[in-house]
């Protein structure tokens, strides 16, 4: 039984190269790639990965860890491509789903927040310049800006307008963060337990 398990482990490691590529490069499927993905032995078809901005990045085939990318243009959050191991346990799957879902939720919130901030800031500047009778671009051709005191009014208004939204976000973020960390702890214990179990069997 232990030999079979060892063989399975070795096989999962070998298949990782192809399964990773098949799974993580599933953006091709999202982008309407007409070629069907070549079925790979031992490939596990999990949920499609998060391609936050249809990123074409594919982690190397031999990698067994998550990959984190550059900050997203809108949300400033770094997207993660999650690694799905061959013998993923239900607990590990729950953790991955939780992290993936939190990533999507965070991305939506911050992208929305930053885009609306930028938009409202431009509108505020435009409106203020108009009331002053100035053009958006001054004599030198550069974009006219307001001084810090005038911008302070905008910052104060924006903060108070979004206060309730932030309250809800904070509460949810703390809950999710704790849940993910707790699951990570459980997964770590489960893996350690398994390793101890295999060692005992070998002995």
């Amino acid at each position: 039984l232990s030999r079979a398990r060892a063989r399975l482990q070795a096989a999962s490691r070998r298949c990782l190269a192809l399964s990773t590529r098949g799974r993580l490069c599933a953006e091709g499927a999202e982008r309407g790639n007409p070629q069907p993905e070549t079925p790979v032995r031992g490939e596990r078809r999990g949920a499609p990965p998060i391609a936050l901005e249809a990123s074409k990045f594919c982690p190397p085939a031999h990698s067994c860890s998550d990959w984190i990318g550059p900050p997203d243009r809108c949300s400033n959050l770094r997207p993660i491509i999650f690694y799905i191991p061959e013998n993923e346990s239900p607990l590990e799957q729950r953790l991955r789903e939780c992290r993936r879902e939190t990533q999507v939720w965070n991305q939506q919130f911050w992208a929305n927040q930053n885009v609306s901030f930028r938009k409202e800031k431009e509108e505020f500047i435009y409106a203020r310049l108009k009331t002053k009778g100035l053009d958006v671009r001054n004599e030198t051709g550069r974009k006219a800006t307001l001084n810090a005191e005038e911008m302070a009014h905008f910052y104060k208004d924006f903060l108070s307008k979004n206060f309730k939204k932030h309250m809800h976000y904070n509460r949810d973020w703390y809950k999710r963060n704790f849940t993910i960390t707790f699951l990570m702890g459980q997964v770590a214990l489960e893996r350690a337990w398994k390793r101890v179990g295999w060692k005992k069997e070998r002995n």
Partner: protein
Amino acid sequence: MHLCRLANKGRITFQQLNFLKRRYVTQYKKDLSQRAQPKPELAAPPFLERKRMGQENTVVHEIRPVLPLHAPLPETSDSAGLKAQKLAVIDEDSAMAVEAESKEEKQWKEMKTELGDLPGILARLSKIKLTALVVSTTSAGFAMSPVPFDLTCFLLASVGTGLASCAANSINQYFEVPFDSNMNSTKSRPLVRGQISPLLAVSFAASCAVPGIALLTLAVNPLTGALGAFNIFLYTCCYTPMKRISIINTWVGAVVGAIPPIMGWTAATGSLDAGALLLGGILYSWQFPHFNALSWGLREDYSRGGYCMMSVTHPTMCRRVALRHCLALIGLSTLAPVLNITTWTFPVISLPINLYISYLGFRFYRDADRSRSRKLFFCSLWHLPLLLLLMLTCKKSLYEKNDRKELPS
């Protein structure tokens, strides 16, 4: 990666076409979904798209020679006409996409913590420089206490406080990952960059907090341990969440900064007396010019990130409080000899630096601009160590104190 690309080379043009179409559609849809009112608005997209066009123009010149190598796909006669029209426009876009894509690929990092990187990562996680400053204020509190200097106790208190500070800073960063990502000053933190997992960060914090507080409680005294534990709680469970709820967080944070010197004093003497509170008071007052000046330049980030800071919501009060506490430092320095902690030399020699920081505080209050806030902030960085040093040099010697104590009896 290369293998992946070469295999797909024949289909690059078609894929890029779809990729770009999707990209355009996705962004367009995003703009639609973010509008507060459902009427069409072009205010936002031009600002974002104009930037991208600039990038396209700068990149195309370098890549143009490569384009003829792409073999066009055999297409059906129906779509050929449409595709041919789009291809000319798409060629430039695809060149930009290829360049941007390779740049982006290099920025993807494997989320594996190498043992060799771990010390550096943990140092940044625990804000080691801030921890060093906190430990030095604790040492100052220990040294100012009116008891013979005990080196072992001093080292234990410093190590214990340092560990407690590491733990508190790590938990703070653990709580604030998405907010830190969005602020320029904090976006290089380890958890934001994925250099360490949240579980590891929490484990590190626990493995610092438990030995640190145990060391303080058992090897120093229970009072110092209790203060250390309370300070960790105050910083992680009160100050950190309150940053996003109310401006009172600044006052809570000032208390957090005031406790370490008190811990140093109680570590030496075992009791909480006037001297400890005075030192705590000096650190408490110092926090306001320091933090209020710092927060002045971060108003935009605070507003966007949802942080409730005086500099955003009550700018005048922010500057007034900073000035008030600069002046309070003069008063507290004068109180030191009254409480028998220092000689009367101390208020005299500390007057120049206290007056200087008060002057900068006054200019900040009156002018309210970025340069004034930076001046005040940088002044606060050297003002505190210098003040504590002067205090140490003017410390009332034990012999004088003992004489005074003996006289009444």
